[in-house]
């Protein structure tokens, strides 16, 4: 017993060998495994994106067949959504930092946590198995095409069903952990805002994911047994599939963005040396976004043949999402106001998040409004909009989190100069790639075609050049991570002088997180006050 306790006081990375990872119930190790896995899929999904951009260098299909192009954008979308952006922050960073943030030794159900990782692995193995006859339906799997194509739809559906199960288990674990395992004195209004974001996220995961699970089950049954729910010839309704699909897939965009917003709420006050402005507004706006997110799925279907009344209601409700979202953005900016801002790499990415997400967010209402939606539907404007929110938002938030917590997770410091070079390349590359898509989109270039009219040629070349810059930026960043892991200077416990609990542990934290469960007496945002840490 004595020795076991001693073992818990070595850094969580001390134990070696594959067994110490494969069977681990330490939330930190499970988080790290998720991070490695999801980042790998991010890179693979990115390669598919580069192939798409390569094909679009010329107006005529040149390098691949149209079918290959369809497969590439399907795999790009499906991988980025299901294997990277949904699990990366919640299951990766969330797993690592939720218990540390609330002063707990682990999540509520460590065994289920490990199971969720292996179910995720089983899921992506099935997804990879489906590549024998790769999907060409787009990541949305719309019927009737998905019920008829020769691609391995049933296999891929099953893989995503498993990934969904893993997502449910993770969300369930986090909800219980946040409710039941907070340290003494850690009241709801003393929780770091990352936890509020993760709590709202977990609720969406738990409520929305089973619906997409059963949807894919029915799609598989459609193909295997011909049940006909989505087949007009049998009295079914393809639009019903879209309703089911978006009932999950719209709320899930908030599974992607809410944790990133949580990270931004952590990073901004630390690097402004100011208490976060509007704590409760930011906290409850997360819940409001989660709630409203369930009421607006129909705005993906304005051109699908819903009734005009349903269209109008969904459009009306969609505008409400802008309110809690703007509440957050205004509060972050108010936090920055008169702060002692420093521009370390996590802060650069956090500010980039605010800027790019504002562009992505403000182009949302164009698509939420009925009249402009009909004009812009399925054009590159949509592609630009959701890349500004998902990549400009979530991925930048993820990068901010990776740079912010890298010293804590690895015990090593990153090379700050290289990190800033990578950031500059990513920032420029991203905007060159995607801003041009707004322009071609408004001018009417439709998405998902391997060929396009010659009048869009210049913009597409610019966009492809941008994607190359972006790729170089990400390569430099990954290289910096590898160098940091191998040769980084040892990280102190609290390099950013932050106040939340994870920084009060050594870097990397010990296996049991806290030798004594801390007693919390204040919120974690008291920056710039005399009783704060040494300024």
């Amino acid at each position, binding site marked *: 017993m004595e020795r*076991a306790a001693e*073992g*818990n006081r070595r850094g969580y990375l001390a*134990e070696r060998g594959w*067994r*110490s990872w494969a*069977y*681990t*119930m*330490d939330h930190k190790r499970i988080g790290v495994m998720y991070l490695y896995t999801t980042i790998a899929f991010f890179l693979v999904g990115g390669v598919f994106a580069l192939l798409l951009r390569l094909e679009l260098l010329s107006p005529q299909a040149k390098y691949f067949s149209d079918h290959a192009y369809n497969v590439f954008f399907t795999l790009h979308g499906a991988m980025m959504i299901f294997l990277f952006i949904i699990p990366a922050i919640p299951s990766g960073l969330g797993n690592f930092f939720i218990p540390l943030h609330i002063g*707990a*030794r*682990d999540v*509520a*159900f*460590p*065994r289920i946590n490990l199971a969720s990782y292996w179910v995720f692995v089983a899921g992506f193995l099935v997804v990879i198995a489906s590549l024998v006859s790769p999907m060409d339906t787009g990541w949305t799997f719309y019927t009737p095409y998905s019920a008829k194509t020769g691609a391995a739809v049933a296999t891929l559906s099953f893989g995503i069903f498993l990934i969904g199960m893993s997502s*449910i288990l993770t969300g*369930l*674990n986090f*909800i*219980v952990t946040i*409710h*039941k*395992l907070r340290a003494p004195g850690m009241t709801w209004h003393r929780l770091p805002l990352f936890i509020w974001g993760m709590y709202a996220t977990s609720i969406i995961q*738990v*409520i*929305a*994911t*089973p*619906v997409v*699970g*059963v*949807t894919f*089950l*029915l799609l598989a*049954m459609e193909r295997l*047994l*011909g*049940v*006909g*729910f989505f087949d007009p010839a*049998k*009295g*079914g*309704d393809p639009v*019903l599939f879209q309703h*089911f699909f978006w*009932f999950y897939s719209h709320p899930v965009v908030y599974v992607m963005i809410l944790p990133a917003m949580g990270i931004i709420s952590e990073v901004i006050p630390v690097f402004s040396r100011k208490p976060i402005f509007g704590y409760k507004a930011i906290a409850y706006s997360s819940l409001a976004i989660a709630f409203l997110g369930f009421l607006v799925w129909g705005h993906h279907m304005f051109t699908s043949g819903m009734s005009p009344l349903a269209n109008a209601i969904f459009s009306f409700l969609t505008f409400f999402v802008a309110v809690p979202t703007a509440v957050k953005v205004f509060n972050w900016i108010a936090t920055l106001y008169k702060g002692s801002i420093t521009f370390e790499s996590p802060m650069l990415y956090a500010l980039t998040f605010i800027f790019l997400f504002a562009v992505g967010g403000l182009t949302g209402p164009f698509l939420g409004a009925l009249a402009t939606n009909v004009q812009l539907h399925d054009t590159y404007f949509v592609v630009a909009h959701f890349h500004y929110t998902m990549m400009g938002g979530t991925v930048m938030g993820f990068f901010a989190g990776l740079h912010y917590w890298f010293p804590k997770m690895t015990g090593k410091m990153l090379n700050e100069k290289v990190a800033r070079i990578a950031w500059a390349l990513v920032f420029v590359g991203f905007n060159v790639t995607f801003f041009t898509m707004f322009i071609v989109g408004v001018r009417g270039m439709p998405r998902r075609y391997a060929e396009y009219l010659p009048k869009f040629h210049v913009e597409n070349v610019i966009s492809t050049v941008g994607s190359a810059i972006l790729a170089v930026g990400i390569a430099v960043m990954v290289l910096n991570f590898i160098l940091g892991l191998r040769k980084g200077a040892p990280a102190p416990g609290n390099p950013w002088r932050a106040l939340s609990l994870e920084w009060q542990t050594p870097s990397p934290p010990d296996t*049991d997180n806290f030798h004594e*469960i801390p007693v919390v007496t204040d919120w974690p945002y008291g920056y710039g006050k005399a009783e704060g840490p040494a300024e």
Partner: protein
Amino acid sequence: MNAPPAGHGDPRVAFESAKLGLWTFLATEVLLFGALFTAYAVFRAKYPEMFRSEHLKLNRVLGTLNTLVLITSSLAVVLGVDAIRRGKARLLEKYYGATILLGAVFLCVKYVEWTGEFRHGLYPGTNIFFSLYFMMTGLHGIHVILGMGVLAYVVVLSRRGRFSSGYHTPVEMAGLYWHFVDLVWIYLLPLLYLIG
């Protein structure tokens, strides 16, 4: 490798965590069936005549019988939980064993029903009503099988002497899950068999 004890070693926190976790899980289950109930509502509104004529082809006697079987099985679960609260592990095993048996009876009756329908040329895909019928009862049947597995695991644990009047969280959780499976059927019976 060594996970910290559940609830940081506080058994009350561990029990409450398990309970909250299970209710959250049941919420996901409601949503899982919810999509099928939605499909049911949509298609019933669209084809009221088909639902009226097709549902007459189902075997109401066996459906009612199965309802009685499941309600009885839930009674056995309640008695089992009550038994372990009083510390009687052997009695718990008997009641949960009876529940598993009743679950098996339910599945056998379902098997008779399904094969009867197949004989009459009624398959998933025959029409929307029968697609719904087979999907909903099929998904429910899978849950019955899973529930039986969970109950069996609890019985095995009990035989190893794991439960007492002080600690029996898995018993209560498995029981709660079984009640949920039972409850789904309570909705399926009127919607599928008794809509006329």
